[in-house]
């Protein structure tokens, strides 16, 4: 959905590093911004201390990524997507909306597709995480990847890794899909270039290739 016109200054000021918050802060003046932050701090009293909590500083976690355990040190607020991209150098999953609405960060966790931007890394411990980097072996593409190439199923390419992971997981669960099932199965991913027609054809073809038909 489109953003509304901004009708005035919000009552609530953000203290993070968002561009919007920064612009507002500048517009209002740093004095007002500081005052609002202090006000919020005063309202949100820390809850009673509890044992067994992690953070807010960095904590050691281990993620099982593409079959290998990966140890890393991250704050609890770090998402799985940021952990993959910034800490493990796996930049296949893309950070596009970062709000769980576009699907470009789709990875497979415990056999299910998820938005990596909507999962905390600390929450993903103990689960098998599969990213786009695991699909091809050497120069041999996964049937879904090969079919995407053959059907020219991308333009700018930002959505492609997420779509390929969504398609792979969908085909693992639905080996004989109808076109309607493909549309519903991939409805969690968006392509702003509008390459849906090619992608659906690619997924249909890949379904045949994955059953032992002619590989692309």
């Amino acid at each position, binding site marked *: 959905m489109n953003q509304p016109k901004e009708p005035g200054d919000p*009552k609530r000021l953000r203290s993070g590093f968002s561009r*919007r918050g920064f612009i507002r802060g500048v517009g209002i003046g740093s004095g007002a911004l500081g005052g609002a932050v202090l006000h919020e701090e005063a309202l949100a009293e820390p809850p009673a201390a509890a044992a067994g909590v992690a953070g807010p500083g960095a904590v050691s976690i281990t993620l099982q990524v593409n079959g290998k355990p990966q140890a890393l040190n991250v704050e609890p607020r770090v998402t799985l997507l940021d952990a993959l991209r910034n800490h493990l150098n796996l930049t296949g999953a893309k950070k596009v909306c970062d709000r769980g609405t576009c699907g470009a960060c789709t990875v497979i966790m415990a056999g299910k597709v998820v938005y990596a931007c*909507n999962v905390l890394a600390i929450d993903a411990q103990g689960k098998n995480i599969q990213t786009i980097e695991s699909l091809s072996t050497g120069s041999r593409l996964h049937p879904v990847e090969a079919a995407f190439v053959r059907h020219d199923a991308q333009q700018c390419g930002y959505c492609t890794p997420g779509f390929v992971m969504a398609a792979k997981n969908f085909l693992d669960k639905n080996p004989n899909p109808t076109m309607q099932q493909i549309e519903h199965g991939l409805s969690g991913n968006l392509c702003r270039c509008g390459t849906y027609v090619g992608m659906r054809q690619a997924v249909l073809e890949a379904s045949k290739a994955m059953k032992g038909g002619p590989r692309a």
Partner: protein
Amino acid sequence: MQAFEYANPSTLQEALSLLGNRWGEVDVLAGGTDLLPLMKDEIHTPRRVVNIKNVKELGGIQSTKAGLRIGAAVTLEELLQSALVRKTYPALADAARGIASPQIRNMGTVGGDLCQRPRCWYFRNGFGLLARDAGGQALVPGGENQYHAILGNSGPAYFVSASLLGPALIAYNATVKLASASGSRDVPVEKFFVTPQNDSSREIALLPNEIVTGIVIPSAVTRSATYEVRQRQALDWPLAAASVVLRMKGATVAGARVVLGHVAPTPWVSEEAAQALAGKAINEETATEAGKAALAGATPLSQNAYKVQLARVAVKRALLQAARGRA
């Protein structure tokens, strides 16, 4: 996103002991499909996040004497894959199926659907739940209100309830089970959704020190359906929706529950539609009349009169679908 401490309890009792007494201190994390975006936009800035995905008591779908019990942490995909839900409560399955994103269904939970915050873009952009300017003037009536309420919108709230399962659960007369460290209570789902009167209150009856533990839907032999009108097929909330439950006596309606979604600050129970259907057979004509009756009191804002017709059609199509008895 601001830094927070993360708690990962494995029992309900432990989870409840980690909650705060005021909103804003602690947030409960289930699927995270709403909470994480809220935290990234700093609409929610909790000092502590309590993950409840590892609390066993909050999972599972079971038949009980009181009816079907659905754990709060049951995912929307688990709900949709339940043969029991699909067969007995098609209006609920319809609503779960309508959440057209496998990624959201895999992570999002039943409890999270009921507790998700409104999608109102003023709220999401930091103008508060009631969306007022610095002078206390409501921004929605004269603003960008094409997705806002057309019923129950005399103020102070203009957003629409975002819950996708709420209307169906209300139509089935379901109960939501809440727990705090000092005990538990049951609230009819209809009473769980409230219109907030100020910015510091919530749109649900949950208290800051409580967790939704589950839902109980009474058993009943009924016909039911949900119909959603959407702008597009993927990844969005409906513009209008209706859930209907019909108790039939032969070919005519002995009792009806008609609940609209995404038209008011709470799911909207239409007694008018139920009355219009009493004693009648369901056909194109009576279903159309019920839709008209449901929206007779609509008070659209400057940009959302189109939603009135969409909501009428949602009621009509939900009724026709329920009458066909499609499981």
